[in-house]
């Protein structure tokens, strides 16, 4: 992809203004041409405006249409914490090859207000174009811009209309007028051809929700908190259709305790929140660990500490997520890297939680939650959906029966035998005890469970390796997209993504690290990439393997990585 960069280099020699529609055209076409030479087509569109002007919906429609045309799309959303006004924008990168991050520079800007132009013009690629929608009627104007955009790319009206009909049903008619208006106002400048099969378009939160439904979740309980809130609304809309129960309770403590109560009686339950709400749940996480009940928690990180930058991203909660609640108890922390992985990891979370009777934290962040990813398909995992509740009632049932795996066979209230959950240390029958022997036995039992889980997660691809090369990038969670997109442009780098952070895949990680340790005269690099300011995964790797990573690329300005950002940083190292 160095060629790609070079072309941009050529481009920069141009002295044409960036906001001139026709002037920019020539160069734009050169780019297209060169991209085709390289067998790759990439465009990045920024759409910006005030909150309330519909940038999110408009960007979603654009992304959707490109997906229908068979292009790969990544849609990044950037918005401040306010309801009307301010400045919002989305960056949509499209490509005929898989793409999982957005770019820093734009080919087209759709401006719903002047601020969009003022703020983003500087990042318009030379030869880029601004479609100015300010002064147009609200919403109508957005659709005019959509019309212009697709006319520009020589796309037929029919896929546009289809997308609007899917999204708005009967209400699509009015939009069509606007689209027509935009469509008729400019000339076709290039011709994007259909790029194979339609793509799926999915945000991280949609992935988590689909995964939860696929896993047979019965109940989702939450208190609204960015970036988890859209799971609540997504699932609430599907309550009847999917026969699930979706509840908002008075606060996060009520949420998690109700979830544990529901879990006690057999319901598959999930809760979702962000760091502040998660903090309030930590007493109950320790409870879930002690009473040994399934519980799936989605922790969507945002820029912390405290209220922080509420609608922006970050990975600052890793060590908090690994160590929440008093005492030692089995737990799992899994961090999906994109929307598709979110489906699978959520299913796995329900599986592990139900089978091993332990709390599971799905650790995501705003970038994963609210970005849209495209895929050829979005198959779910074939992992078991069992509740792991006994059908046959055993004689002399003991809620905390001591077993080799540490897992006690499970019954729920209503099946007959007395079932107990006890937050105090307990005997196998679940009665309170202060007896030293029982305390040791139960500790050992819980510890064995952690080991049993580790054996199982070993089989669930706890790490993934992308690319080839002697140098190693290590990351987790939503940085996956930008790292993968950067890889082709980096020499001799491969990427180790750690998905299961607890139980930590020690051997797998150590194996990769060892491969990239400097040997003989051959210099090798191991670089940690994290969206936080201290390199928390580095700490975890050191704790688990003894290996201390010195080389870190840390971004903590509340914004996600892009491939360009990473490439620059890595070339700087």
């Amino acid at each position, binding site marked *: 992809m160095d060629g790609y960069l070079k072309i941009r280099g050529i481009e920069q020699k141009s002295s044409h203004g960036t906001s001139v529609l026709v002037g920019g055209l020539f160069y734009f076409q050169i780019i297209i041409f060169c991209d085709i030479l390289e067998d790759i087509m990439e465009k990045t569109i920024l759409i910006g405006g005030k909150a309330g002007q519909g940038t999110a919906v408009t960007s979603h429609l654009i992304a959707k249409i490109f997906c229908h045309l068979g292009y790969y799309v990544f849609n990044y959303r950037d918005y401040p914490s306010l309801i009307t006004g301010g400045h919002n924008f989305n960056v949509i990168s499209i490509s005929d090859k898989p793409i999982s991050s957005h770019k820093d520079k734009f080919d087209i800007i759709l401006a719903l207000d002047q601020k969009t132009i003022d703020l983003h013009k500087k990042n318009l690629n030379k030869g880029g174009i601004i479609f100015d929608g300010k002064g147009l009627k609200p919403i109508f104007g957005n659709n005019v811009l959509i019309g212009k955009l697709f006319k520009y790319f020589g796309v037929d009206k029919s896929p546009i209309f289809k997308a609007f009909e*899917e999204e708005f049903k009967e209400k699509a008619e009015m939009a069509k007028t606007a689209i027509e208006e935009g469509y008729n106002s400019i000339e076709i400048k290039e011709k994007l051809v259909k790029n194979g099969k339609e793509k799926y378009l999915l945000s991280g939160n949609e992935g988590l929700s689909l995964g939860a439904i696929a896993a047979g979740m019965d109940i989702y309980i939450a208190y609204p908190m960015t970036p988890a809130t859209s799971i609540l609304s997504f699932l609430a809309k599907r*309550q009847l259709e999917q026969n699930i129960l979706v509840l908002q309770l008075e606060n996060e403590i009520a949420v998690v*305790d109700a979830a*544990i109560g529901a879990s006690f009686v057999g319901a598959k339950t999930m809760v979702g929140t962000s760091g502040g709400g998660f903090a309030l749940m930590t007493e109950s996480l320790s409870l879930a660990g002690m009473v040994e009940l399934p519980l799936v928690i989605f922790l969507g990180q945002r820029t912390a500490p405290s209220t922080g930058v509420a609608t922006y991203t970050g990975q600052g909660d890793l060590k908090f997520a690994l160590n929440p609640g008093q005492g030692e108890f089995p737990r799992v922390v899994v961090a999906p890297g994109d929307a598709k992985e979110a489906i699978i990891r959520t299913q796995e979370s329900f599986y592990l939680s139900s089978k091993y009777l332990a709390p599971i934290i799905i650790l995501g962040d705003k970038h994963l939650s609210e970005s849209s990813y495209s895929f050829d398909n979005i198959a779910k995992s074939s992992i078991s959906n069992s509740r792991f509740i006994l059908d046959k009632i055993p004689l002399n049932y003991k809620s905390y029966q001591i077993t080799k795996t540490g897992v006690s066979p499970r019954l729920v209230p*209503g099946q007959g035998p*007395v079932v107990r959950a006890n937050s105090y240390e307990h005997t196998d029958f679940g009665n309170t005890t202060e007896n030293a022997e029982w305390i040791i036995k139960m500790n050992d039992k819980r510890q064995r469970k952690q080991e049993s889980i580790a054996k199982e997660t070993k089989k669930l691809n706890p790490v993934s390796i992308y690319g080839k090369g002697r140098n190693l990038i290590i990351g987790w969670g939503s940085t996956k997209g930008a790292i993968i997109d950067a890889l082709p442009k980096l020499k001799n780098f491969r990427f180790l993504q750690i998905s299961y952070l607890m139980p930590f895949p020690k051997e797998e990680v150590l194996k990769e690290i060892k491969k990239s340790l400097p040997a003989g005269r051959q210099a090798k690099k191991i670089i940690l990439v994290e969206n936080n300011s201290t390199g928390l995964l580095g700490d975890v790797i050191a704790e688990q393997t003894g290996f201390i990573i010195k080389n870190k690329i840390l971004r903590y300005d509340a914004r996600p990585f892009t491939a360009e950002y990473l490439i620059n940083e890595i070339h700087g190292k």
Partner: protein
Amino acid sequence: MENKDLNTKEENTWCPGCPDFSILESTKRALVELVNENKIEIKNTAIVTGIGCHAKIFDYLELNSFSGLHGRVLPIALGMKIGNPKLTVIGFGGDGDTYSEGMEHFIHNCRYNSDMTMIVNNNQVFALTVGQPTPTSEKGPLKPLNPIALALTAGASFVARGSALDIEHLKNLIKEAILHKGFSFIDILQPCIVFHNTVPYFQKNIYKLDPIRDLTNSKEAMERAEEWDYCFDRDQKIPIGIFYKKERPVFEEQLPHNTWYTQKRKTDWQDLTKDFH
């Protein structure tokens, strides 16, 4: 079924003579009678306890049971009820538990009106942590909160006060509370004979509310609630019995759902994901 069927083999560690024993006894009698009257099934009955002396009932009842967290009886109970609405769910909390640590759940559950029962062993003291004042303590500079009045204001559909000194009366209250469809709340006057011994005062001042008056009169209920301010500085009459009882729609029946708790769910993945295509 007999009382002893609810016994466990656990050693009882309440102070000898603690009125918590009476609450245990009333509970057993109430449950046994309800079972024998075919009104509840014991296998479908489950209790939740907080943390405190009151909570030790967990170990003394042979029942499905959840010993939860200090202050969190109600959300756990609510979760159990929505997790399986067929269950008869009974919560046991302390006054520290319910009115101090977890007051928000008390107010909100009065509003939610889930069909369950909340019993508070109100000894007006943090007993298990050796005697600090709670929100219903007359000790300290502040006026006690009146949980009966709060429950009424917050919308509880069954509000009662029991006395641990009157096992039969309490048994009947517990039965009525369990049978009431909606959130049933009983504040039990439970002298802590070690840290807050109010037995003589209660013996002198407690009287029983007429059980067959109009129980749906919220104004009267509030007036009755205000007869006693949870203080002991002067003799005041203390009504026990049902203050208020009026059915209204139950939480779990108002939720837009189907029978998630029984049904085997089959997801049509193709159909589910078509919106994303």
